[in-house]
């Protein structure tokens, strides 16, 4: 199907989102909660754009481009004054909630609009409630963390804010967090995350800690990976693979 984004005609498949089509055509739309590997949630609303059903349509509607499935003939504007103002408000609100998140401050400066300083949250953290960690944990199959409470009290936590069997200490949540809110302590012996301590497994090749024991068990349980995945770190596996290639080559 055909649609127009910022005056540029774009071709799209049905089921694609505006964001996907825009990015393929190198049209920039800022996002926070979106992640290519995860199912969309439409939580941050930074990616809003204005859409009209067809070229002659007057009525524009503001939608989240990361969730809105394209339609034939759709007219998208990614930077109308209204859209820019809404993004500014989203960032201003997040800046008040997360005064310590430099990523938000940087985006806010990049936006360059008339910023408003809202009352800073007394219990502000770096968490912008983008749900990336929750979705990643779900995709891994652990469901160890979820959003709890309602309204401004909403936060991400393991069940009952306590140690949970479901968490394998894989650290994906921390790695995917855009603001570095999720605290991780790494030592050669253990990793601490969500107030839980996980013993590290050592690489049979180089002796370096490379994943938690619990992660190793979880992945082994899936039965989809080669045995060396559980004994050797990524660097050693690469080196071994390279060595095999060299042998095959000579």
């Amino acid at each position, binding site marked *: 199907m055909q649609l127009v984004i910022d005056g540029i005609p774009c071709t799209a498949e049905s089921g694609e989102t505006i964001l996907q089509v825009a990015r393929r055509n190198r049209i920039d739309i800022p996002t926070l909660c979106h992640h290519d590997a995860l199912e*969309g*949630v*439409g*939580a*941050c*609303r*930074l990616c*809003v754009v204005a859409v009209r059903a067809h070229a002659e349509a007057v009525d524009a509607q*503001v*939608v*989240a481009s990361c*969730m*809105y*499935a394209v339609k034939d003939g759709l007219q998208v504007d990614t930077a109308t004054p*209204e859209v820019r*103002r*809404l993004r500014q*408000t*989203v960032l201003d*609100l*997040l800046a*008040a*909630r997360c005064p310590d998140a430099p990523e938000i401050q940087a985006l806010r400066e990049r936006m360059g609009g008339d910023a*408003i300083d*809202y*009352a800073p949250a007394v219990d502000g953290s770096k968490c*912008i*409630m983008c*749900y990336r960690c929750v979705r990643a944990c779900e995709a891994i199959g652990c469901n160890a963390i*979820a*959003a709890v*409470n*309602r*309204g*401004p*009290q*909403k936060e991400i936590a393991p069940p009952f804010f306590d140690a949970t069997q479901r968490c394998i200490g894989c650290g994906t949540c921390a790695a995917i967090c855009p603001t570095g809110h999720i605290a991780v302590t790494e030592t050669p012996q253990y990793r601490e995350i969500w107030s839980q301590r996980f013993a590290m497994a050592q690489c049979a090749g180089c002796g370096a800690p490379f994943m938690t024991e619990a992660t190793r068990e979880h992945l082994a349980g899936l039965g989809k990976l080669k045995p060396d995945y559980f004994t050797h770190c990524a660097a050693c596996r690469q080196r071994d693979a390279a060595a095999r290639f060299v042998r095959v080559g000579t």
Partner: protein
Amino acid sequence: MKLTSVDMLAQRRETLVQRTAALAREVRVCAGTACVAAGAGKLSDAIQREAAAQGLVLAVDGDAADVEATVRLVNTGCQGLCQAGPLVRVLPQDAFYCGVRPKQAARLVSEALQNNAVIADWCAVSPQGQRYATRAEVPFYRHQQPIALEGCGAVAPESLDDYIAHGGFAALVRALEMSPEDIVQTVEDAGLRGRGGGGFSTGRKWRIAASASASERYVICNGDEGDPGAFMDCAIMEGDPFRIIEGMTIAARAIGAQQGFIYVRHEYPKAVARLDKAIVACREAGLLGAGILGAGFDFDVEIARGGGAFVCGESTALMRSIEGLVGEPRANYVRSVQEGLYGQPTVLNNVETFACVPAIIARGAAWFAATGTPGSPGTKAFCLVGKVAHTGLIEVPMGTTLRQVIFDIGGGVLDGRPFKAVQTGGPSGGCLGEAQLDLPVDFDALTAAGSMMGSGGMIVMDDRTCMVDVAHYYLSFLQSESCGRCVPCREGVAQFCHLLDTMRRGTAKPGDLDRAIRLAQDIAQASLCGLGKSAPNPFLSAVTHFRAEFEAHINDRTCSAGVCRDLTVFAIDAQNCTGCGLCAPACPADAIAGAPKQVHVIDAQKCTGCGACRTVCRDDAVRALPRNLPCN
């Protein structure tokens, strides 16, 4: 007994109607929530004891089969005038008594039930001293027209037989004779619009669901009723549960659904119990389940219980909740009529919407459309509450003005105080002022004025109401009820509450009103679901109609209503004070001095602005004055 054909149902009705007709009189005791709280249960027991003592055989509730009885006693659902319960209505005279006590049962039985008399000294009296011999004359009821509430307060809620005797399931029989397309067309022609808030055309919704290609379809009844102060849907579910089932079954027939759900909040245990009984009774009678009335049409209903979150009334959150997921709205742009529950086409309608359906099918689209306005046909139920003389549950033709509702039905503002505002539409709605009183009750007219119809809460406010405070109340409600998923609603509404709070406290800065208006517009535009999109309405409507009050709070630090404590001190008007001494003990700050029969004085330094003195004063001698805060 299983009714395996339409003829069997007709025969059953015939038998039941004959039995009921053989009863000389019927006494309806309201067993709605408010009346029960006022002692209706004890009253009903007392009537039964008295009747036994006086040798009068009563047929109670559903058991009209007791042929020896001459009088019937029905413990009904809400009869409407909640404030004056326990209510009793005696037919066929249509006598209507308010506030009947158990000790009055003897006279009720001997005079009204044995002797067919109207007990004149119990009848309601007009301010001019005129007695209302019948209920139909009472102004509270005179201007009403029940359609959705037709059976509520009339039928025995737990008796399928009684519902059938009152004409129940006749509409389903009609629907079974019609093609699904004809049913949809009839509902569309009737112009029925969703009573749950949005006012979307019900017929069109059904048509989209019917035409979506799918193997399964669902019908859901939204009984979440989250608006604070509203209880219309609860009253219908408790007072006339079979009507909802009939309405849903007709919808199922129209769209080709086999499974329905009634989503009820857990604060409504009685509604759940009643619906549960009604579903079981319908299954046993062959009115639900496989092969309804032998017509080769299958449909069943299940109850889903909600946790009581306001946002769970929103369609996508409600469906997730039924699926066993967290009740948060979905952020997709596919309509749930096409892809709803379990991804299948789903018709979601409000309780009152379904309650209108049997009447439309039984009496026709033209009959329904003849009532109301062209854009909003039919009637609308409201819960009339707040500072109004007569509070309760009402149903009026669309097009009735707010003034008629508040003054003719509601009897005007409580204690004769001046009217200030009326709030409709609950937390998503707004406040309208004196100048809007002649607006008709109509989806489009109320929306155009900045409020909305909503599900039917109507709160009347007098001159001692501060609009900044009211806006703050609704926004704090929404702040705690926001699911917290999207930024504009979670953070924006919280900031909004903060801004309104600074206005209440006198710490707002010039320009804050414009900031608040901009934030309101942004929240409305950018939020993910209907909760956030409509969250600023209580504020925006208040600013539209009461802007000066907001400006006075910000610029002059005054609250003319005397509600915002930080801006107010109270003083006693020596002209009016009679020295009755009521105020001094009521003051929690010990700020009032005065000898008996002498003019009292409030120490402005000690006064905390709580207004307790003003509430207790009977002589209108307490005045709210600005507490002149230092400039900041």
